[in-house]
């Protein structure tokens, strides 16, 4: 196994650890009522889903090093599909709640993304995995009948399109907020999510293969570190962040 693969494994698992810490931290964040609490939990599901996906990326490299059979790679692919689709469901719910303040979309989203997961699993079989392709920075399944490029793009758009729109709306929301720590967090989270989508979905489709592979490894790490830093800022950063948005309340004398 090439040394670059071990580095890639280290990066993938470091990223997974960052995302996991972030997700578990969000689970403990206090909320004023059930709606925001659920949105927080679903946002944590997104980060934990990403943590699982990155952990699986690293695990694939380990399986290559241990010369494990193809069937195990296929199994991990199924788990990865579940982690990513549930994470995306969580992210979309969180964003929808943020913009609408309504909770009724939870179950339609869960069912839609669960079915999407089933479709990915079903398709994995249709594409016929025949081996594992090992590159300088990772390992991926090799299919006998890989998915068509245009169809793949459409499927990706259906999968992540709503999130991309919502992330654009996050940027728009930032213009509404006064200069504050919340706005810094908002911009960082929106930027990190946009980066993640770009690295994971856009680069492999359009970019150079090696650059895409390196970017797929490094961008999530950088994005995770940034988001973690603004949520749990070290003292030097905390001093530089603007204050929080003040709680608005009527000037009440009684």
């Amino acid at each position, binding site marked *: 196994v090439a040394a670059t693969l071990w580095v890639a494994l280290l990066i993938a698992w470091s990223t997974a650890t960052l995302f996991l810490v972030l997700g578990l931290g969000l689970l403990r964040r206090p909320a004023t009522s059930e709606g925001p609490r659920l949105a927080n939990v679903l946002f944590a599901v997104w980060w934990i889903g990403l943590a699982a996906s990155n952990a699986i990326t690293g695990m694939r490299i380990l399986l290559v090093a241990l010369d494990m*059979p193809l069937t195990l790679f296929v199994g991990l692919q199924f788990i990865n599909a579940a982690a990513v689709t549930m994470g995306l469901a969580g992210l979309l719910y969180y964003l929808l709640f943020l913009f609408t303040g309504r909770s009724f979309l939870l179950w339609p989203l*869960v069912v839609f993304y669960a079915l999407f997961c089933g479709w990915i699993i079903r398709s994995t079989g249709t594409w016929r995995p025949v081996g594992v392709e090992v590159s300088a920075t990772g390992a991926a399944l090799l299919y006998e009948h890989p998915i068509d490029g245009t169809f793949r793009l459409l499927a990706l758009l259906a999968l992540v399109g709503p999130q991309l729109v919502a992330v654009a709306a996050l940027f728009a929301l930032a213009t509404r907020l006064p200069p504050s720590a919340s706005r810094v967090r908002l911009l960082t989270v929106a930027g990190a999510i946009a980066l993640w989508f770009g690295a994971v979905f856009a680069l492999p489709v359009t970019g150079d293969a090696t650059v895409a592979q390196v970017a797929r490894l490094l961008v999530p790490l950088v994005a995770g570190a940034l988001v973690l830093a603004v949520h749990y800022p070290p003292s030097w950063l905390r001093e530089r962040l603007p204050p929080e948005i003040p709680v608005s309340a*009527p000037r009440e004398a009684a």
Partner: protein
Amino acid sequence: MSVATAAGHAAAQPRARHSPSFALAYGVGGVAVLALILLGHVALDRGWLDVGASVPAVVRSFSAAVFLAIGLSSLAGYAGRGAASNLILGVAFTGTALILAVRLVLHVVAFVTGDGSLYEITARLSFSQHTYLPLTILLGLAFVPPRDGQERPRAHRGFLLASAGLVLLGTVGALSPAFPGSIVEGTVVARPSASWVVSAYLVLLALIWRRADLSATVAGRWLVFALFVGFLNQTLVAPFWHAASTSGAALLDALVTLLMVLVAGAGVVLEARHGALEQAAALARARVEAAERARIEEALAREAARLRVANEELAQYAYLASHDLQEPLRMVTNYLQLIERRYADVLDDDGRQFMHFAVDGAVRMKRLTNDLLLYSSVSTKALVPALTSAGAAFEAARKNLELAIVESGAEVTSDPLPTVWMDEGQLVQLLQNLIANALKFRRQEEPPRVHLSAEQDGDVVRFSLRDNGIGIDSKYADRVFGVFQRLHRSDVIPGSGIGLALCRKIVQRHGGRIWFDSVVGEGTTFSWTVPAEPVSLAPARPEPEDAELERRVSSLIERARELI
């Protein structure tokens, strides 16, 4: 083996902690399942598991037995306690055991007769088995929700019928060539059950996660673990079938199924035992806590009664003090004024000035005692809220202040005012104090303009009294409504500093709140709310569109502040 805790019991009690044995059993079980899966992949890949068809069948028979044992014990638990979670588990696992048993029989027949087509049917039954388990649980959650602790026998019957229908459908489907079997074109990595069942498992895990009342029960935890392992079975074990040896794959599939049932069963036994002990401990704790709570409540009630008496005594004391002080004060004032009048010519300039100070002090003290008497009477007098016309109260207040209004050339107006649920005398007092304040703190360059308006805001009426006076600096916001708090010297603008404190007390006694908005040099708006009598109020004015938009944006920013 019994699934002991009922959903209804758990819903009524605090969420039980996971015992170490429970966590250990599930932790060890989870690792064992994963290790078996990992080894299974390696063994199949190396061709170590090329066994005959009978071996997986034997393993399945064990699984069927364990499924049946857990299912029946859960049904027994349901018969004894009527808990919905036990019913769901009982039907789900007994039904699964039945399908497994059918598969076993078919295997044996196929082995004895050498009829290969029967193996295809057992493969189809595998699909039925894996679909039945999550669908039954889903049905259970939909039909017999124990959310409110109320069991529904009719829903239970519906659930039983629907589950029986599922078994029938699955079996008939397995015998029909219309349904695809597991084996597709020589490879079975794409067996149908492995994809859509994963979707079902994901939805179910989310459902049970949201049903805190169910996942807090022993049976519910069992369910979560079983579903989680079922999910692993459909993701990590499904690709076994990709391997060359289908008999080996069948063996591993059966082994993992058996292992997950054994592990989950062990968890149930441990948790049921621990749960029983915990319930006893919780009962004892609850008794101690109830006794302690009763003691604290009694102490609180005593303290509240003591405070109430002290408060009443204090209010009475203030009333009596201010009342009884009036007579001697009147004497002091009268005689001081008499001395000032009669002996002014025998006093020198210093003496006359001292006498003037004494008379002035006595007059201010008299005013203070009068106001204090009024203030304390608001607390001591019984409140008589009734349907009161705010318009009539406004007119009464204006009439009381007629002289001051004429002298200052003020314009005191109002919109049409609603009827409110208030003590009429106190409403007049409130309006009178606020209007008098507006007349008193006027700007010299223009006559005072005072306007009163009101609008319904939900279940309260919000009044706003706007003036064009000197305004109040926001830094005094905390002091304005305090007793004896004055922002101006009494020799510049006379007053005792009780007027606004009195207003606050009146509004608070009526369950409302009072506040102000002001711009120095432009004027002040005092606003207050009082409960509305819904039928007697004018309809609320619709908010303009831009206000609605503004409200939405504010709400969005509030959510962002909390969620980002």
